[in-house]
Each structure stands twice: as structure tokens, then as C-alpha cells.
């Protein structure tokens, strides 16, 4: 287990930046909104990973969650796109310069309702993006309608009782062959931060379903996405902490209950998983699906790294792209030579 880093304002990381330089605009979300603490953990994670903000780009759809990219990484490019269509925007943008890391912020309405089709196709393509769903089971920006992740039987003012089964975002991600699936709870900043760090280091799609309670429209004590319910029902799979590759890595050959298992990320960095009471192997998709099914039956909110697969190529690896970022290619690299057109004309009849 690593010692938590204490950060003082003004302290400079290996990128030569203070934490301040990772901040965004002041939040306009409701005070106490879980989304704000997620934004703060993104700031902390990027700072601690010594990421240069110019090497990140942020995407979002529409909704309260999608406003939050403004609240972190001011020095990163950002695009607040259309409702449910954040993933396609990012998919196109990643081809311009594959060294720029994409972080996408979506919500449960954005991902599990209007954007469900795009979400699943983005997952199956293994688009290299940290895809965070700030999941509160409710439409906040339109002031309190059910989302697709709202649990059956939930009561909302003006809406009545939700009669439908909820969408489990992690289950959907796994069903579409995601290579990284994790769930956390916005109130557990340490776990959120470590999972974000792991997600950033993952090469491929990293789905992070973060239960982020809506303080205004969905916070009945008995509601699935509320603070009180979550705190009582949280069942952490394991403690997780991120070890930067420049630090010493503690290797554990054996993986037994109560010990630490290390998962090597694509970029050589690694994640340490501390198993608690469950003998949980996050590299088994079969086990992950089974665990989610059990969790659903038992009404558990299981947090932690649910699944990780490190060998599969990310979308951009499937194209044998030139080394120069495509958006820096010169005209001579983009326009075929004149004599090739003479040949093309002879190829026509």
C-alpha cells in the first residue's frame, strides 16, 4: 500500500506544474453534488500522474454531468457536444493525435438512455478514452425525471413510481466486451481517484460508473443512488491504489485472499488490487458478470475494478497510422503526387 501523497498548493509535480494548473472554472452545479468531487479527483489524478494538461482532451454530452469538464483541466481542449453523442465526437478526435488522452464525462441519461447505442459501439471498438458515467439515476438538468438507471419502484415528485428495471452500466459495458470496467462512489474520493488513475493508464476504453448522488432531485434515503443508501450498501471489492511506473513496483506472484495483486497496464504502469473478503479476479470476464449478477440479486453496490483486459488493441491501433500526428501532416503527405492522377485517369475507362 502506498502512502497517501499530501499536496500543498504551490508544490510542483514532475511535469513542473502545481495542482492549481489542473483546475477548471468554478463549478455551477449544486453545492454538494457528487459530480464536483469527481472533478476534483480528476484534477488530483492528473496532477499525481504528472500529466501535462495539453496532452488531454475532454468530452461530454449534455446534462449536469456533461457540464463538469469545464470544472477541471482549464489547459486542456474540451468539447461539450450533443446529448448522448459524446463518444462519437471523441472517436473522431482521437485520430488527430493519438498521444492526446481523451477523458469523457457522461451521465446516466446521456449514456444509458439517449446514447446507449453509441455507448455500446464505442465500447466494442475499444476506443481509447476514460469514459466516466456520473450516475445519479435521475435527470438533473431538466429537474427530476427518471433515468434508465433508476431502480424499479423509485418515487419521484411529479413522476410517480418507476415501473422499469434499471440498466446496469457495468453489465452493459461487459456485455459489449469492454476492456476496463470499474464502479465507484463519488463519496469515496480515494477509490475514485485511484480508479481514475488506473483508467487513465489503461490503453483502450475504460468505463467508470461512478454513483454520484443528486442532492436535489434523487436523494431519498432509500434511493439507490443516494448518499445514505450508497454508504450503507457499498461493498468494496478490494482496495486499489495506483503505482506510477517511475516508482518501485511491488510484485506479488501469488494472489490469495487478503493479499495484493498487481495488474500491469499497457503503458507499463500498474494497479495494485487489495482483495478484501472476496476472492475476486478482475481479469475474468466470466467472474465479473457473475459477480454483477450476484450483486444485483443481493442489492449490493459493488465498487472497485470489476474487469480489466490489457492485451487487446485500442481502436487507433487497428489502423497502421503514420507516426506523425495526422493533424500535423503537411500537404505533400496528404495530397498524392500529380503523376498518380494520370494513372488514376487511365484506370477509369
Amino acid at each position, binding site marked *: 500500500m502506498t502512502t497517501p501523497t499530501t499536496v500543498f498548493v504551490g508544490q510542483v509535480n514532475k511535469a513542473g506544474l502545481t495542482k492549481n494548473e489542473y483546475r477548471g472554472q468554478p463549478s455551477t452545479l449544486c453545492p454538494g453534488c457528487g459530480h464536483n468531487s469527481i472533478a476534483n479527483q480528476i484534477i488530483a489524478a492528473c496532477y499525481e500522474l504528472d500529466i501535462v494538461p495539453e496532452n488531454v482532451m475532454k*468530452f461530454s454530452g449534455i446534462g449536469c454531468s456533461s457540464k463538469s469538464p469545464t470544472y477541471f483541466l482549464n489547459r486542456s*481542449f474540451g468539447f461539450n457536444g450533443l446529448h448522448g453523442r459524446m463518444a462519437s465526437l471523441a472517436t473522431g478526435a482521437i485520430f488527430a493525435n493519438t498521444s492526446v488522452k481523451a477523458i469523457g464525462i457522461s451521465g446516466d441519461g446521456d449514456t444509458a438512455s439517449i446514447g446507449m447505442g453509441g455507448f455500446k459501439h464505442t465500447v466494442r471498438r475499444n476506443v481509447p478514452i476514460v469514459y466516466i458515467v456520473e450516475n445519479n439515476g435521475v435527470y438533473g438538468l431538466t429537474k427530476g425525471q427518471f433515468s434508465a438507471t433508476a431502480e424499479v419502484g423509485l418515487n419521484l415528485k411529479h413522476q410517480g413510481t418507476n415501473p422499469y428495471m434499471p440498466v446496469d452500466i457495468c453489465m452493459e459495458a461487459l456485455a459489449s466486451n469492454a476492456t476496463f470496467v470499474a464502479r465507484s462512489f463519488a463519496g469515496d474520493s480515494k477509490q475514485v481517484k485511484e480508479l481514475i488513475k488506473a483508467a487513465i493508464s489503461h490503453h483502450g476504453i475504460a468505463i467508470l460508473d461512478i454513483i454520484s448522488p443528486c442532492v436535489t432531485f434523487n436523494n431519498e434515503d432509500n434511493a439507490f443512488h443516494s448518499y445514505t443508501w450508497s454508504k450503507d450498501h457499498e461493498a468494496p471489492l478490494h482496495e486499489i491504489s495506483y503505482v506510477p511506473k517511475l516508482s518501485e513496483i511491488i510484485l506479488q506472484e501469488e494472489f490469495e485472499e487478503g493479499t495484493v495483486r498487481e495488474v500491469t497496464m499497457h503503458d507499463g504502469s500498474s494497479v495494485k488490487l487489495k482483495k478484501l473478503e472476496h476472492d475476486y479476479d478482475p481479469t475474468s470476464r466470466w467472474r465479473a458478470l457473475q459477480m454483477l449478477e450476484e450483486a444485483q440479486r443481493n442489492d449490493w453496490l459493488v465498487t472497485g475494478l470489476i474487469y480489466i483486459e490489457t492485451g487487446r488493441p485500442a481502436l487507433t491501433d487497428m489502423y497502421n497510422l503514420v507516426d506523425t500526428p495526422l493533424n500535423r501532416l503537411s500537404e505533400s503527405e496528404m495530397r498524392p503526387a500529380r503523376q498518380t492522377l494520370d494513372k488514376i485517369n487511365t484506370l477509369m475507362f
Partner: protein
Amino acid sequence: MAVKKFTNDFSITIATVNGSGSQTANVTLLRALFKMGIPVSGKNLFPSNIQGLPTWYTIRLSKDGYIARRDEQEIVVAMNPASFAKDLASVSPGGVLFYSDDIKFTLDRSDIITYPMPAKQLARTSDVSPNLRDYIANMVYVGVLVQMLGISMEAIQQALNFHFKGKEGPINSNLGVIRAGAEWAAQNLKKNDPYYVKRHDRTNGMIMADGNTAGALGAIYGGVQFAAWYPITPATSLAESLNVYLPQLRKTPEGKQTYAVLQAEDEIAAIGMAVGAGWAGLRAMTSTSGPGISLMSEYTGLALFTEVPVVVWDVQRIGPSTGLPTRTAQGDLTAIYYLGHGDKQHVILLPGSVNECFEFGWKAFDLAERLQSPVFVLSDLDLGMNQWMTKPFEYPDVPMDRGKVLWEKDLEQLNGIWARYKDVDGDGIPFRTVTGNKHHAAAYFTRGSGHDENAHLSEDALNWEANMARLKRKYTTAQALVPKPIEEKTPGAKIGLITYGSSESAVQEARTLLKQTGDLKTNFLRMRALPITQEVSNFIKKHERIYIIEANRDGQMRQILSATMPDQAPKLRSAAHSDGLPLTARWVKNTILAQEKKV
């Protein structure tokens, strides 16, 4: 009685069954005639069906070089029993019917000449495997036509050689059946019709291609770097042509790609990806047809507002949903002009020929990046999927215009002081940066919400209005940048004809007919883009009456012209027609003459 001979000036319609392989036979005929130097056009009238329904292919030979569709068909080749009655009735008086002799019928017309063809019997004697016999039976009519019309066997060989890419096996077996058909006709049929073909010199220096291939090649020479698309007739072959030609033309010597093509899950994702790529500094495009355009409405509206370059090809078909997906129209014009919600007009390019599909293929990127805006290219099924004779593709005559992009060195010179949406040059076009720019002041936040010059969120009324006024200024700037119209003048003409896109061929032919039969002189203007340029408004102002000729029901270009130039609207007349088929010169002539009588 001396019978008038018709040489190189008639139409042949071939009626077959969809999916029977008749396309190879038809295109072979078209190409052979083209190689003989005869101006030709080929139009495939096919059903929305994979196999089994009737399909027709019309080849027009025109010694004078007219390539529009005609209503008349002097020669009909009937291979399909299911459509036979209709096909028999469709032969022009004095025309010729070739028919497969397994079709039983009673001839109820005395004004045409008929020739039987033992298509199935001759195919059986061919050495091809039994499962290919139905397919190769189509070559029998090629052989019979070769003999009866005088088509050069050498030209047929050239066409087959091209089609089968020099593979001797299929070339020889097809040629064998064609020869058998020709020999049978020589021995068994006595020519008593007046239709002949003869070598000519009117196709020298021309090539044959379809607009979708040309558009894709144009995009490749325009440096396309990212294309996302979703299959839809009649646009699919444009994206498929990217897949064919990009690997040949745009890989480095080490075999690395300078491009990426992605088949998306739907049109909403396809445009989203293209907008993302355009935003990040790539030359990005998508290609679709009407229903896809509807789905792309929200993202293209956002791209216009957030000022993201992206190129969208619309190969138009007719109708919503399925409509008539294999028929043509120019019906998406107003929908695209105003696509998206709120105040706006889009930049639209209107290619009128295959060659121009190539030209606008690359120009669209220059315009999109210069204007930081979506640019639509409106082709249609007729232009996109049919083979046309055209001038060879011409290499871009200007260097790429990458627009106002600031990189690290530019920002250093500016000491990092710049504003994403500030109109520095007074042309409405601001400066932009793209991802991967390492300067600490490079990044900005792109949003559909209200924003100020610095791209910061703003709900301020004045900011909103100022931004919208600047976008309008930018659209005015576009007027001077888009391709100018093509004009042709006739001394003494008081009437102007305006058309665009693939309707030009019918209009040009109609001008001749109007002069010959109605003694009506006309000036001509083909629009090649929206916004409306100065040349177009001048043309309208100079004429007493203007006819706007287009292949849609509502006269959509007339609507746009009327709305933009309300003082000129009373003299703008519509000649608009939409039934799924390309316009004919006869229809254009008759429609204009009918309205002229009311003058």
C-alpha cells in the same frame, strides 16, 4: 421507299431481371460504344431489391453529344418475361424489339420490327459451368446487338478486358458467347431496321466514371484524413471507393496510413465522429443520402455554431424513409440549406458532372477549413451511381487552404494572447487551435451553449447576438469563396435558365429544342454553390424572366432565390419535376413553352 437511317442517334433500353448479372453485359455495351468514339450515357433504372425484380438499363447514343435521359426508346431488348408487355409497349413507333425467344407472346403492334434471340439455347452451348449460364445468357444480346447495329468487336474486347481486369478466363468465356450471338444473328436475322452505329471521334480525351468514385478520389486528392459513414443507397459506393483508393494513394512507402475510415453504427455517430475529427484538425468527411442527412441535422447545426470544419456528401435519392431509394432527385436542397435548428444557412456545393464531383471533392475541404464550417456537397443517384463520359480528373490547381489555424510558434508570437471567437480580420472567420498544440494558451472549450469571444460560457444577450451577427458575416464571406456559376449567353436572349447539378444535361439539350421548335433564345446559368453569389444575382437582374429548372416537386432553388432576392421573386418561375427519374429535355422544353404562352 427510302428509309431514313439513324446512325449514332437513338436509345437502347435493356429489360432484364435484377441480380441476373445483366449489369456486366450492359456496361460492356456502353463502354464499347464509348470506345467507338460515340457520345453515350447509361442510366440504370433498378428496383430496391437484391434479386428477382425487373430492371432496365438505357443507353443513349447521341452524335451531338447530348447525354440527358430521353423518353423515347428506339431499341428495346426484352429478356424478362415479367415485364415483357410493358417493354413491348415501350418501343417507339418505327423502333425495334429484340426478345429472348423463350418468351411467348402475340405481337399486337405493326409499327415496330422484332427480332428473336435464342439466348438460353446459345448460353447452353457455352463452355461455362451450368450455374453461370443464366448470367452469361445476357452476353447473347450483346452479341446480337453487335451484329445487328454494327458495334465493333474490338471495342467489346476492350470493354471486357477493362471489366475483368485482364483476366483471360472470364474475358474469353464472355467473348465466346458474344461471338456465338453475333454469328447466330448473321446467319439467322435479316436486318430491316434503320439503326446503325459507326465509329466517331467525339469521345477523344474523355474518360468514363461515376460521380461517387470521382467524389471519393477528389476527397483523397483533397487530403481527406478521416471518414466515418453508414451504409445507405446511393451513397455507399462513395465510402467504398475511399476504401478502394486510399490504400493505393495515401500510404507512406513504409505502408503506414495517413488516413482512417470507419463504418459507424448509424449516421448520428458518423457525423459525430467526423465533427470530432474536424474539430481536432483533420480533414474529415462523411457521405450519406436524405434519411442520413435528417439524422445528421443536430451535429451539423452544432458544427456550424461551434465553427468546426467538416464535409458532408449527400448523394440524393427520393423520399423520406425508404422512399424510392434507387431513384434520383434534387430534393434535399432546402432541407440542407437550413439544416439544424435556429438561424442559419449552410454552404452547399452543387457538382454538375463527374469531373466536378472530383473537383468539389477536394475543394470542399479547402472551403470547410477556410470557413470553419460544415460544407455540404449535393450529388444525386443519377450522377453518383451511373457511368458518365467526362473530362479526365484535373489535379488541384491551388495549394491546400488549411484556414486560420494557430500552432505553437504562432501563439508564441502572440504571447499566447488570442480569442477563439474574435473576428480579427473582419471577415467573420476567427482563428482556431487544434488538439496536440502544446502551447499553454492553445486550449479552449468548445460548446453549443452561448459563448463570448474567449469561448467562455455566456448567457449574455449581447454576446449571443454579436456571435450570430458574426456567423452571418462569415456566410457573406463565403459568397466570394464558393465556385462561381457557369454562364452561357445567346445574343438577343431575354429569358434566363438557371439550373444546377445533374439537371444541366437536360437543360442544355432543351435550349437547342427551344430555339429549334419554339424560336426561343435563352441564356444559361448553372449554379455551383450556395450561398448565392454576385454573378447569380446579376444574371437574375439582367433578364425579363428566369426559369429555375430542377428535379424536385417544390422548386426548392426557386424558393431559396425568392427568399434571398424578394424584389426579383415575381420574375422567378419554376420548372420543377420529380418522379424519381432524371429530367428529360423534352419535359424541360414543354414546361417552359407552356409557361411562355401565358406571358
